[in-house]
């Protein structure tokens, strides 16, 4: 399980603990202009806990009236944490108060940022401090973190994930089974090393956009074959390339030659009378031809033209059907899954479990986001 996922789950647990009205947030209410101290809420460690070590560029967007102060402090905390790259505010996006999260992300994703944090502040009950919800998204719209809290209360420390996982089929007797023994530090380090190796070697993507590792670097099909240990496929590619080249050259030269010869003499025969013999206007015998005689007659030329064209078309169809690579977009997902599964087995890691995650979503479609992996 990756770090962002862990943090998401941690944040989710907090988000789910919000009072129902705040979570639903049917209509953001402007917060009174009373001074609120957000600096104790957004500490550098708490605000940046979900960022990881890659120092992403972050945009922090105040998405409703009254959230500017909280956003500014959040931004300052991220900057102070030194775990973020460039941290910018949402001025470049213009007015966003009337937009939902998806529309805000659409605007923000063109900026050179990797994280989009949308902050909304809600007025508390009379006498109570305001609360906030900060949703973190990737530029593709996936939820990377969901934070919530109350002014003056520091953000909670990250906790272990609380994913709603679908475990492998086990007997019901395990429901109340004995608690699993604590993992030793050595085992934990070994598991983390295996996870890292898996993350570096796992395959992903589609045919035409194959990737290896996490987040993934592009690899060629030949590298893909090597990664999945299918050298036979690489050898097939060599053979198929030679076959394709032979067919292309043979069909191209034969077909092209016949086509050229046929077409040439077809045109020559069609224009044979233009430069043909001229016996004079007073030709006394009028028994001669007025055409140049060519080695190939019109019917023979037409036949050669047809045969040449058929060869070229056949060659084109063959090259279109008989691809150099023996696998295509249909087979690749299966190969990737099989490789990843076998890799996990080899590394002694448990199979990737199906999981369901929930995250709050505010804006035009308020509610919960359900993210599933099966």
């Amino acid at each position, binding site marked *: 399980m990756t770090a962002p996922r862990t943090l998401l789950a941690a944040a989710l647990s907090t988000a789910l603990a919000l009072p129902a009205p705040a979570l639903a947030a049917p209509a953001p209410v402007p917060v009174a202009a009373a001074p609120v101290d957000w600096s104790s809420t957004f500490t550098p460690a708490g605000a940046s806990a979900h960022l990881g070590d890659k120092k992403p560029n972050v945009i922090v967007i105040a998405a409703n009236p009254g959230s500017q102060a909280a956003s500014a402090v959040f931004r300052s905390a991220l900057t102070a944490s030194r775990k973020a790259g460039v941290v910018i505010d949402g001025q470049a996006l213009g007015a966003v108060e009337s937009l939902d999260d998806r529309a805000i992300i659409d605007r923000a994703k063109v900026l050179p940022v990797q994280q989009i944090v949308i902050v909304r502040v809600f007025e508390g009950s009379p006498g109570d401090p305001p609360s906030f919800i900060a949703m973190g998204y990737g530029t593709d719209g996936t939820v990377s973190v969901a934070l919530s809290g109350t002014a003056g209360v520091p953000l909670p420390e990250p906790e272990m994930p609380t994913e709603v996982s679908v475990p492998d089929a086990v007997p019901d007797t395990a429901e109340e089974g004995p608690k699993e023994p604590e993992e030793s530090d050595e085992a934990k380090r070994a598991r983390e090393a295996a996870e890292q190796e898996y993350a570096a070697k796992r395959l992903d993507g589609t045919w035409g956009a194959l990737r290896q590792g996490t987040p993934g670097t592009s690899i060629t099909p030949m590298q893909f074959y090597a990664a999945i240990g299918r050298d036979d496929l690489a050898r097939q590619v060599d053979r198929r390339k030679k076959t*394709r*080249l032979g067919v*292309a050259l043979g069909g*191209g030269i034969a077909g*092209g*030659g016949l*086509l*050229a*010869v046929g*077409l*040439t003499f077809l*045109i*020559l025969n069609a*224009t044979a009378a233009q*430069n*043909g*013999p*001229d*016996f*004079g206007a*007073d*030709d*006394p*015998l*009028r*028994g*001669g*031809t007025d055409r*140049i*005689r*060519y080695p190939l007659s019109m019917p023979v030329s037409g036949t050669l033209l047809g045969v040449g064209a058929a060869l*070229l078309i056949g060659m*084109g169809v063959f*090259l279109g059907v008989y691809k150099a690579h023996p696998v295509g977009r249909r087979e690749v997902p299966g190969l990737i899954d099989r490789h990843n599964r076998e890799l996990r087995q080899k590394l002694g890691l448990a199979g990737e479990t199906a999981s369901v995650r929930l995250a709050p979503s505010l804006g035009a479609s308020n509610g919960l986001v359900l993210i599933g992996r099966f």
Partner: protein
Amino acid sequence: MGRLKIFSLFFGVGLVSALAPMLVGGCTQCEEFRECTTKPGLRYVECGNTQHEFNDGVSVEDEDIAWDYCYCNSSRLQCENGSSLRMCNYMTVDGSTAAQYNDGTVAELTTAVAGCLEYTGCAIETARCNYGSWYLNCSRGEERAFVSGAGAVFKDEKNAVDTCVARGPGGFLCTPIISDCEDLDSCASSKACSEFCSKPACFNNKNAASCIADPACRWTPQ
């Protein structure tokens, strides 16, 4: 094979196809027609190096064969001494003539024919022929013989003239070949001069046969 190579291949084929007619067509040009002497009205055109087309429908690839068909009669003149002559007339080319004996030796046409027929001498006649055709007028004292290009010997000149005149499908006129009927041995021998023995009235010959028989006239293409 990449798409670029495929495209290049097809482009090359297309280019060759487009250029080939111009290249081949440019090499195959027909020359001006040449007037032959073996048959009245026969002409031939040379196209490229292998096509020699005649206006009687004959097509010959070999240039020597075409040359012979145009200028040398295939029929041979039988000589008094048993030998034979093949007569060639290159007058429409360079004005020369030739005769080839059956032993392969070559001589000047008129001399060879006179010797062959044991006549004093021969002269090439073209005045009453059309399209560059010809016949030989040979004499031995008062005796005359007329030899066609095909090697036929006639006593009556009009029969030899008949072999050197093309009638053809086009328009023809009977035109005078002399300006004064006095040039004839006898005005009575010519229909054009028989009425008034002065300027020949060839138009009195209404058809080819009449014109060909008239020594003062020639059947001339319009």
